[in-house]
């Protein structure tokens, strides 16, 4: 057993007792990265030299623990590029609030970032200017996305724990594909200050970890009200670890019928149903529920998310930072020319597609028919959940309709790619928290994820149920062979 195999809570104990040092953990990680990174490509801009890290002197709950950070979360003085050419060389002059919080908790921030779909646009981490990340369980498969790098590095033991961001499933779907624990917190639970925005009303930063306890540990460290983010909520952060009792007796679990539909992968269906049986054997009571507006989630999501994205990405024009195209012939005074070349060359194909979609739906004459209507349906989707949570403690679903697909399989078919988020995006639209935990493997050895959803700000419930299931099944003990 190497140090890199351990979880954060295991390492933290050893560091606190003086048995090992944080540097030894870093050395161990470095060794692992050197050995498997060429196959996985979970990190970007990784240097030949030893991975460096920003040490923290603090002795908090994450003392000495290295944390890997997705490339869209600002780290002061360290490149943060959203895996896009247009942000080439961008070094933020400030830390995201989650980074400051991690440092305060004693964590060590790795100087190399994790791979992602450009600006978090995608479900496979193929849309990165640094090339695709490979799924550690099957290198020919995608790790999911957009936080594919964060999921893959945790899965391959190239990281102890990682942060990702989730706008429509970008933490949970790759967590499912890579067999790790991924949590999307309630909207407003974690500050977005320093997260380079994709869709401001949907984005949340969250943990990707090897087990549920680490998830609880990491979420607690990054949560809480931030005066710098007006959408963060001033509510006390519970001690999530105290909910890891394993006791789920009497909890009511809703199983939405709209999530078990024809066309979903039969193996995934069987595995998830088995997981529900397992939970019931631990004492939960499951019942069928209905979320009738689920069918609108994908179109509503792609209107709202692309509209906000088209606005948020407007600032990338080559003026102040990042990439600037220099037209071969200098055309005097042609500012628009510079903007057009910069954006034309700086953005990848999927980014352009989403900017165009969003620009269209916000345009004069289309706003009411698309954006405004989407906002209304979004409210209906949220009301579906409110209704179910009036009666049930949580909802359990598959995280994704299929296991990891092959690299290249869907990259030419954006619609089928968008559908791989079908079980995750309603959660973002409703602003509620959800966790994905490993619940088994397909015959081909690909992990399958179980998604648990709860009421706003009831992440404790997610941890309670997830931990009980995890301890009863120990899927996390299985590691990919690299």
């Amino acid at each position, binding site marked *: 057993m190497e140090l890199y195999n351990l979880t954060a809570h295991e390492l933290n104990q050893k560091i606190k007792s003086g048995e090992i040092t944080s540097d030894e953990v870093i050395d161990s990680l470095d060794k692992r990265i050197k050995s498997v990174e060429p196959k996985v490509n979970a990190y970007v801009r990784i240097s030949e030299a030893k991975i460096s890290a920003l040490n923290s002197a603090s002795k908090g709950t994450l003392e000495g623990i290295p944390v890997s950070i997705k490339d869209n979360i*600002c780290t002061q003085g360290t490149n943060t590029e*959203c895996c896009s050419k247009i942000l080439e060389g961008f070094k933020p002059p400030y830390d995201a609030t989650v980074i400051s919080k991690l440092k305060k908790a004693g964590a060590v921030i790795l100087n190399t970032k994790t791979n992602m779909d450009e600006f978090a646009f995608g479900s496979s981490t193929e849309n990165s200017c640094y090339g695709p990340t490979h799924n550690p369980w099957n290198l020919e498969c995608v790790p999911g996305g957009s936080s594919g790098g964060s999921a893959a590095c945790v899965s391959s033991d190239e990281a102890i724990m990682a942060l990702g961001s989730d706008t429509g499933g970008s933490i949970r779907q790759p967590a499912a594909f890579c067999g790790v624990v991924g949590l999307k917190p309630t909207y407003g639970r974690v500050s977005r200050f320093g997260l380079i925005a994709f869709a401001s009303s949907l984005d949340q930063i969250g943990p990707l970890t090897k087990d549920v306890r680490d998830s609880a540990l990491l979420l607690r460290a990054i949560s809480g009200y931030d005066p710098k983010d007006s959408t963060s909520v001033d509510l006390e952060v519970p001690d999530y670890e105290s909910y890891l009792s394993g006791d789920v007796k009497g909890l009511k679990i809703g199983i939405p019928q709209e999530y078990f539909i024809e066309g979903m992968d039969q193996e995934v269906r069987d595995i998830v149903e088995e997981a529900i049986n397992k939970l019931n054997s631990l004492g939960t009571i499951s019942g069928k529920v209905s979320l009738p507006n689920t069918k609108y989630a994908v179109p509503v999501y792609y209107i709202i998310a692309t509209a906000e994205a088209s606005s948020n990405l407007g600032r990338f024009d080559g003026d102040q930072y990042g990439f600037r195209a220099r037209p071969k012939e200098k055309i005097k005074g042609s500012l628009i020319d510079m903007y057009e070349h910069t954006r034309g060359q700086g953005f990848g194909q999927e980014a352009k597609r989403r900017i165009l979609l969003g620009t269209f739906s916000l345009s004069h004459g289309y*706003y009411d028919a698309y954006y405004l209507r989407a906002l209304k349906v979004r409210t209906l989707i949220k009301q579906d959940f409110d209704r179910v949570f009036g009666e049930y403690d949580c909802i359990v679903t598959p995280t994704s309709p299929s296991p990891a697909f092959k690299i290249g399989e869907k990259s030419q078919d954006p619609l089928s790619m968008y559908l791989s988020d079908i079980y995750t995006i309603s959660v973002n639209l409703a602003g509620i928290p959800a966790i994905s935990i490993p619940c088994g493997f397909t015959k081909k050895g690909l992990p399958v994820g179980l998604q648990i959803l709860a009421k706003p700000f009831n992440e404790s419930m997610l941890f309670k149920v997830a931990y009980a299931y995890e301890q009863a099944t120990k899927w996390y003990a299985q590691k990919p062979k690299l």
Partner: protein
Amino acid sequence: MNYETVIGLEVHVQLKTKTKIFCSCSTEFGSEPNTQVCPVCLGLPGSLPVLNKTVLDYAIKVGLALNCTVQPFTKFDRKHYYYPDLPKNYQISQYDLPVSQDGYLDVEVGDKIKRIRIKRAHLEEDAGKLIHENDASLLDLNRTGMPLLEIVTEPDIHSPEEAHAYLTALKSIIEYLDVSDCDMEKGSLRCDANVSIRKIGETELGTKTELKNMNSFKGVKDALAYEVQRQAEVLDEGGKIIQQTMLWDVKENKTVVMRTKEEAKDYRYFPEPDLPPFLITKEKIQEMRETLPELPQQRCKRIIQEYGLSEHDANILVISKADADYAEECIRAYKNSDKKPVVNILIGPMFSEANTRNTSMSALGVNSDNLLELLGYIDRDEISNLNAKVVLKDMIETKNKASEIIKAKNLIQISDTSFLDSAVDEVLQANVKSVEDFRSGKANALMFLVGQVMKKSAGKANPKVVQEILKRRLS
């Protein structure tokens, strides 16, 4: 042909908060370029706006003072356009739910009170400043994120004079509220105008042009007058008005085309997702209402009642708060029950001295005690009005007291008849022609003779006494 002028004004008022609207950068004017910036106002990736609550309070106050309905639910929206002075390439503004709307302002034009409706007053962030130098354009982002309140009228203004009166009244109210410096030169008050004309009797609005770059109230008036005239000439010649944005060229005294609107701009407004909507409770509005100071119109009514001022005088005195404060202090300290003499010296010489120096009366450095001392000399007929003006000027320049100046310059009026009699004698002997003129009925000749006596006394003779002596001697 006779036309009716239709004008709507959009006034941007920079609210004088200590920090910017969405970040904690200073709003100080005139600092080195790009020294008052941070990731938020620079629009760096990942940064988020947080509303400065004082800005909202100020906006509510202005809304109430302009008789608007303050909205119980207000939100911000993004307005998209590409320009280097706008780092995010969208401006955080307010689209369909402004802080306040549907108000009015009553302004005095000539002798009439004219009601101009206020359509809306909404908050937004200012953009930066582009400075064009030789071959390059430089960017100063200090101004980015300054809090602005945009106050938009209905097209209720029908002449450049009405526009001027509206601006004067608006500025006055905002100064009383103490929420902006309203300094057009520093850009803390900016005015754009939409102008169109139509045949008298028509109800449809004509095609409008938008006027920008008017850097003073006079500029607004001049630009509007020019543009109205230009449009009338175009129509008279059978031409059509083109919807354009025009710039006022103050040097050439004319409007020039900035851009022609080929189609309506699409700003792609949508609700700002980084800022939750704001609820303005009835309690909050009441609290703001209670903090409203006395406004110019109320003050005008009060001082008419309290001091027996004429409406005309009161209206002039209340326009500027600083002036009104100063004037009231003087009026109160003036012990006579008839306040006319003190009002006259304020509205006359004091006002004109302040205007020449482009400042307020209170900033002239003549405190009420000193002014009243000077007024005492006038009341006692001890100096002439003419000399009083000279003394006042001296007081402002030297900061000396009236008594010191009058003594040093020996300006006390001579009312001593024995001295004046002999001076009159000399003048009558030297101006036989004028004496004859007067006797043959030319009344003007008397004033000439008075002037000659004044000259002889080096301006110190009391003109009233001189006139009496002359009349007696010539009758």
